[in-house]
């Protein structure tokens, strides 16, 4: 009886408090969202809440009744040249709520590739405001029978700044001239996959990273569950890994980052919920359990930034596997993410995350007086004086 009396009194106090403090409490919540603090539970870390209308190119989407869909990749060559890899446009429902923010994740339908994605505007380049610079529509046909570009990159060590695009579902990796006018190389065989020991075919490759001498490593991927090492010309040198849970085995190696001294290869073994570390010839060194990254980035300050598929957190590791900082949370409001799939940063300290389920790419600008050790710094690119154009 006494317990019940206390309970009623407590509820009356709470209700009275809500009536009296409701508006200010609500305002306080909004203020908190705009001035998030560091540490666990942090939403945007040292970054401001992103502008939901970035990029201008997609807000509003040029084709009425449609919207851009799953965002496989983003790569910031500079603040004024940002590549977006889109996995097709989607038809909007006939009735769209007035509060629709402009990204597919709002509809809570998971993969933003459904029911059918039209493979148009798969590769576009925008400036700092998100205004369209280039649309590589001449290459849309490459993605028609797959699910669009998986990720996009420029090697930080390539003065010619070729643009690399991974297409997992069609089992190939493309290398384009910097202006996108010419396809200069295709690794793998279009629409044909190979087995784990076949160095001429991929099976669902996912990500690339490079050594300074041009050697590169491919996470391959959903099907072959291995890493393939290539020389700078694209000749396959060796592979390691097979399906399994042991050291050196993988279940969907999805992300890869290369760096350190001596250089190491950090592989996101997403299905096994760990990062595995190897030397550059595939010798297993160690594993970091408890994280299942979609993607990773080797930063200019030699840290591995990983975007976790389990928690939607952006995690900064030192090269020994110690977590130094993390932020981010699942959601579809600005600043939150739903399956961040590629991470990149420009020389101004802006961070970009493409979301495959959220159906958007967000640009995070640093807060004033942000702690630089908690910002993502992409590796500087070689000067572009010799950038190859057609």
């Amino acid at each position, binding site marked *: 009886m006494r317990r019940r009396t206390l309970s009623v009194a407590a509820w009356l106090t709470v209700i009275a408090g809500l009536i009296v403090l409701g508006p200010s409490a609500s305002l306080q919540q909004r203020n908190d969202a705009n001035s998030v603090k560091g540490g666990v539970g942090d939403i945007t870390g040292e970054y401001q809440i992103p502008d939901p209308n970035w990029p201008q190119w997609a807000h509003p989407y040029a084709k009425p009744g449609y919207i851009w869909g799953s965002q496989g990749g983003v790569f910031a060559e500079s603040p004024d040249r940002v590549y977006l890899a889109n996995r097709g446009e989607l038809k909007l429902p006939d009735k769209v709520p007035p509060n629709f923010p402009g990204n597919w994740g709002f509809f809570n*339908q*998971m*993969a933003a*590739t*459904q*029911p*059918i*994605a039209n493979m148009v505007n798969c590769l576009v380049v925008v400036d700092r405001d998100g205004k369209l610079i280039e649309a590589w529509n001449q290459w849309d046909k490459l993605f*028609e*029978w797959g*699910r669009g570009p998986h990720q996009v990159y420029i090697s930080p060590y390539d003065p010619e700044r070729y643009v690399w695009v991974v297409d997992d*579902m069609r089992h190939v990796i493309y290398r384009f001239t910097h202006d996108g006018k010419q396809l200069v190389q295709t690794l793998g065989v279009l*629409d044909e*996959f190979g087995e784990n020991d076949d160095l001429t075919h991929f*099976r*669902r490759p996912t990500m690339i990273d490079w050594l300074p001498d041009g050697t590169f490593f491919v996470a391959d991927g*959903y*099907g072959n569950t291995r890493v393939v090492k290539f020389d700078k010309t694209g000749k396959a040198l060796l592979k390691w890994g097979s399906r399994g849970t042991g050291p050196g085995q993988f*279940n*969907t190696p999805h992300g890869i980052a290369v760096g350190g001294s001596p250089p190491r290869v950090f592989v996101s073994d997403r*299905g096994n919920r760990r990062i595995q570390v190897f030397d550059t010839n595939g010798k297993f060194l160690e594993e970091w359990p408890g994280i299942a990254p979609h993607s990773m980035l080797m930063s200019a300050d030699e840290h591995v930034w990983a975007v976790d598929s389990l928690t939607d957190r952006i995690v900064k590791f030192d090269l020994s596997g110690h977590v130094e900082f993390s932020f981010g949370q699942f959601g579809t409001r600005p600043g939150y993410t739903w399956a961040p799939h590629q991470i990149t940063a420009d020389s101004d300290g802006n961070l970009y995350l493409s979301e495959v389920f959220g159906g958007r790419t967000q640009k995070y600008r640093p807060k004033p007086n942000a702690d630089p050790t908690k910002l993502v710094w992409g590796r500087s690119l070689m000067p572009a004086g010799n950038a190859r154009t057609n």
Partner: protein
Amino acid sequence: MTFKRVTLLIVALAVIVSTAWAQAKPDFSGTWKLSATTPPNYPGSAGWGVPSPTLVVKQTPMEVTIQAGQYGPNPMSVVYKLDGSDNIWEAPSMTQSGTSATVKWRTKARWDGNKLILFTWNTALNQMRDVMTISNGALTIQRGTEQPGPSTNALLTYTKGS
């Protein structure tokens, strides 16, 4: 007269060669019953590539037609052209989200010795590669499927049925 003879000779040779080539290739025609899968009870991938209990195969020198339930929840009759060209069509089909939509389909086939390799794609993000062989009266299919998640592999064994 000589010209006519030469023409007739060329035509005859072409017929003989093409007939011989066709005869050299296995004929997969017939009704086939699923007898085993490796791994056991292979489920396909999220409703795609599910081994059909029965395959009805019709083969001509120009194409192979397979009627089966392996293309989704409902049986479909699918044509693979044997000249290496694409066959593209549209059909109402199940999508990844479980809804039905008009989906574009594409098939392609090629021979690799006595193996017939069949490729199937659709714009609902489904892909399948079947490598078909006949040995000792049994039809084996090495199947690989692709969907947004991990790839799957299976070996399917069929025996002649009615």
